[in-house]
């Protein structure tokens, strides 16, 4: 193709349409634009830099292969983050198969100690720069169990409904609801503790 498109100026829809015709340069521009988002989403779920890198790159390869099927009914970022989410879930399943059930996992459905914690956040953003707050939330997310974190990431970042989360995590709707509930409780407690540490 020699239409000499200004890839940097073109919107995502145009780049997708042109990439669907096999223009790799247009696809590279899409990767450059959204690679941080895709990598971040993978890292949010996997909490491992190298795995997140590998999975995010695999997601882009899959996106290229399936680009012909993308009808632009959702935004390109939504579409590509769905791909990375599915790959992360596969990766987490592979990881789980290789590990024995931990005490933490056994306590998972019942909520463990989080069961007794109140959902009181206070104001964790008080006196914090936004970037600092984001780091803190990310750190707290990293301290949740895999199941709790995954449920929360799918709900809040990926904006999936309970039913979709249950399908992807291969569990019941009730389990999704309780995982989200206990995840929120623990997250609130972690953020509160971090804030308390600030004052000490």
């Amino acid at each position, binding site marked *: 193709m*020699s*239409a*000499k*498109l*200004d890839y940097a*100026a*073109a919107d995502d829809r*145009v780049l997708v349409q042109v990439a669907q015709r096999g223009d790799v340069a247009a696809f590279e521009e899409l990767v450059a634009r959204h690679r941080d988002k895709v990598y971040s989403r993978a890292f949010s779920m996997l909490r491992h830099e190298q795995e997140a890198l590998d999975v995010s790159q695999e997601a882009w390869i899959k996106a290229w292969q399936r680009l012909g099927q993308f009808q632009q009914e959702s935004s390109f970022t939504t579409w590509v983050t769905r791909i990375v989410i599915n790959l992360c879930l596969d990766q987490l399943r592979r990881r789980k198969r290789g590990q024995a059930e931990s005490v933490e996992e056994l306590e998972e459905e019942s909520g463990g100690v989080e069961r007794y914690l109140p959902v009181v956040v206070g104001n964790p953003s008080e006196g914090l720069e936004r970037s600092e707050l984001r780091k803190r939330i990310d750190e707290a997310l990293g301290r949740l169990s895999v199941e709790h974190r995954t449920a929360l990431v799918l709900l809040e970042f990926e904006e999936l409904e309970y039913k979709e989360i249950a399908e992807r995590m291969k569990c019941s709707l009730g389990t999704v609801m309780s995982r989200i509930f206990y995840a929120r409780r623990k997250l609130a407690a972690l953020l509160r503790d971090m804030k308390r540490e600030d004052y000490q």
Partner: protein
Amino acid sequence: MSTLIRPTFWAWVLLGLGWAGFDPVQAQEGEVDLLAQLVWATDGAKPTGKDLKEVDAATRDKLRGVFRWKGYFEIARKEFKVAATGMARVRMSSKCEIEVEQLGKETFEVKLFGEGKMVVKKRQTLQSGELLVLAGDDKNDTAWFVVIRLHKP
């Protein structure tokens, strides 16, 4: 007699309202005014010996928003009308003609002819502010564009 009940006042009001509601694009029932520009794009300098002028800033900015050529020169600019369910054929250069047919409200069929042969036909809805661009490569990494839009003369 108060101003509000004077017949001449109401005559002016009605005339004003009529004028405000007048849309030059829809001068006759279903007839539309269109503008077509033949544009040549290049990365080089303006060719000497040719009477070329740069395309208007609005069109240039729109084209630059999508394409990477540096210069956009207007070769021809044609304003024309198309009646409801009518058709107009417009010569853009000695080699290039377009034929625009109005199929329905805001729906057009545009045919592009190169050296008398139909090169491409496209059906398109056009609303105010929308551009339909038919384009292709020209020699030495330059390109031609036929830019069509609704137009208020």
